[in-house]
């Protein structure tokens, strides 16, 4: 178990180095990618800043908490852009071109090769920006922020990434089971829009869906709760459980789908 995990990490490090070399060949593209993501951040900031011109409080969160929420969202998004976003974007295409067939013959995890082979190292700049935004917004919290709590970022962001990865994997894996599944990818992003807003804005039924069935609501809301609300004692355990549970479920679904894919030929 430990050896195979080390093997996974070694392989990922090699992918990182290869991707970094490839990315640095086109520095202009790196710059445009950075600006694109900053534009996306700006959109989210404009939305909430404009809304807070008309209201003071959203379910107990003022503008300071909302900025922290956006910081977490940006940070998780930046890391998912680095680690696996590109691979999921071209996932259906790879299946159509039967790239998976070759990957299945290799002595490493086909899941890793399909989902984490190409990294986009330029987005590390965005991660840096997002981290700065998050720390700045935490410093503005009205009740103050004990800086020791910022270490929790090291736990909650990987957990959120695990949920992001798992949910995307489940939706993308559908491409193995049907002829054209690109729209399921779009459908995922429609659901993910709900994860881009605090979960307490939604009613109980919707919260049940986005926290338990397709846990996109946990990607930014729960890590923010852990950071800004020390009294919320169940947010961290719930987040960690959801992260492990969704990783396990996604891997199980992947294995079952690959088996079915191989049977069909």
């Amino acid at each position, binding site marked *: 178990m430990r050896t195979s995990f080390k093997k996974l990490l070694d392989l990922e490090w090699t992918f990182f180095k290869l991707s970094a070399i490839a990315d640095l060949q086109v520095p202009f593209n790196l710059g445009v990618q950075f600006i694109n993501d900053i534009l996306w951040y700006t959109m989210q900031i404009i*939305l909430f800043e*404009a*809304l807070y011109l*008309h209201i003071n409080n959203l379910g107990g969160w003022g503008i300071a908490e909302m900025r922290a929420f956006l910081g977490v969202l940006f940070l998780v998004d930046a890391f998912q852009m680095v680690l696996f976003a590109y691979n999921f974007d071209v996932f259906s295409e790879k299946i159509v071109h039967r790239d998976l067939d070759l990957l299945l013959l290799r002595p490493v995890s086909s899941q890793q090769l399909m989902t984490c082979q190409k990294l986009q190292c330029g987005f590390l700049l965005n991660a840096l920006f997002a981290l700065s935004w998050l720390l700045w917004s935490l410093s503005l919290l009205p009740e103050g922020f004990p800086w020791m709590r910022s270490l929790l970022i090291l736990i909650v962001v990987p957990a959120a990434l695990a949920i992001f990865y798992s949910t995307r994997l489940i939706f993308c894996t559908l491409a193995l089971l049907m002829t054209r599944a690109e729209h399921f990818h779009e459908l995922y992003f429609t659901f993910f*829009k*709900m994860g881009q807003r605090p979960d307490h804005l939604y*009613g109980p039924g*919707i919260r049940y869906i986005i926290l338990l069935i397709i846990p996109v609501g946990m990607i930014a809301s729960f890590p923010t709760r852990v950071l800004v609300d020390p009294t919320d004692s169940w947010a961290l355990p719930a987040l960690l459980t959801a992260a492990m549970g969704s990783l396990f479920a996604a891997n199980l679904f992947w294995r079952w789908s690959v088996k079915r894919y191989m049977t069909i030929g």
Partner: protein
Amino acid sequence: MSYVSFLKRNLACIRLGISSRTTYPIDFLMAIAVIPICYFLVEAVFWSGLIKASGNDLLAGFPARYYLGYYLYIILQLGSINWRFERVMIAEINSGAVNALLLRPSSFFEYHLGQLLGQKLITALVMVPVVSFIAWAWDLPFHAQRLPIVFLMGICYVILLFSLHFAVASMAFFFDNVYSLNNSKNMIIWILTGELMPLDLLPSPIREWVIALPFSCGIYIPAAYLSGRIDTNAFMKGFISLAVGGVVFGLLARFVWKQGLHRYSGTGA
């Protein structure tokens, strides 16, 4: 005679767009109904949840049902950006597949615009009854008698925006990778259309500037007019900005395409 052939080949492109949209039934259902309705529902739960969580009945002077009525227009998809379609245009220029089209009597512009219009028209026409039903079932503000003129604005906007997409895609003649540039353009359009939020929520004077741009005819102006947020006078002003924008983007598209083609032919392609 040339007008008739122009019409015929463009109708053929529109038919091609419709048939390529309807080839795969599940894909068709997902693209025209499931995803837009899910998108509407996501916005509906967000805006109604937001107004409830704020503790007020109104947001910027409008109750929640006006926000739901506003987002009904999204289901018609006339103002939404079609990312996949633009990527195809860029890929065709990058890969040289554009050569096959250059040899035909139809132009690259007509070929893709026709298909885009076909896809948009079939989607909007199929979804009108669905939108009307949702408005009736949820008692949302929806002025059905305004649909024809809103439809006309939607089609004009598709043509205007296509010119801009075409200009950016034509930059693939000059650069190896214009996908990122295309994404930047779409991000900016996303907020300028009012898809992210109704533009009247923006602070003044930014609000007035943004509404005066032709991009507001993508979502904000038609959606606000259909749901009764704005009057006929404000709606009609949208056609002026569309006309000006159409000329500007049309000329830009023509210029970039001509220059690109010149450069492309110069390399021996």
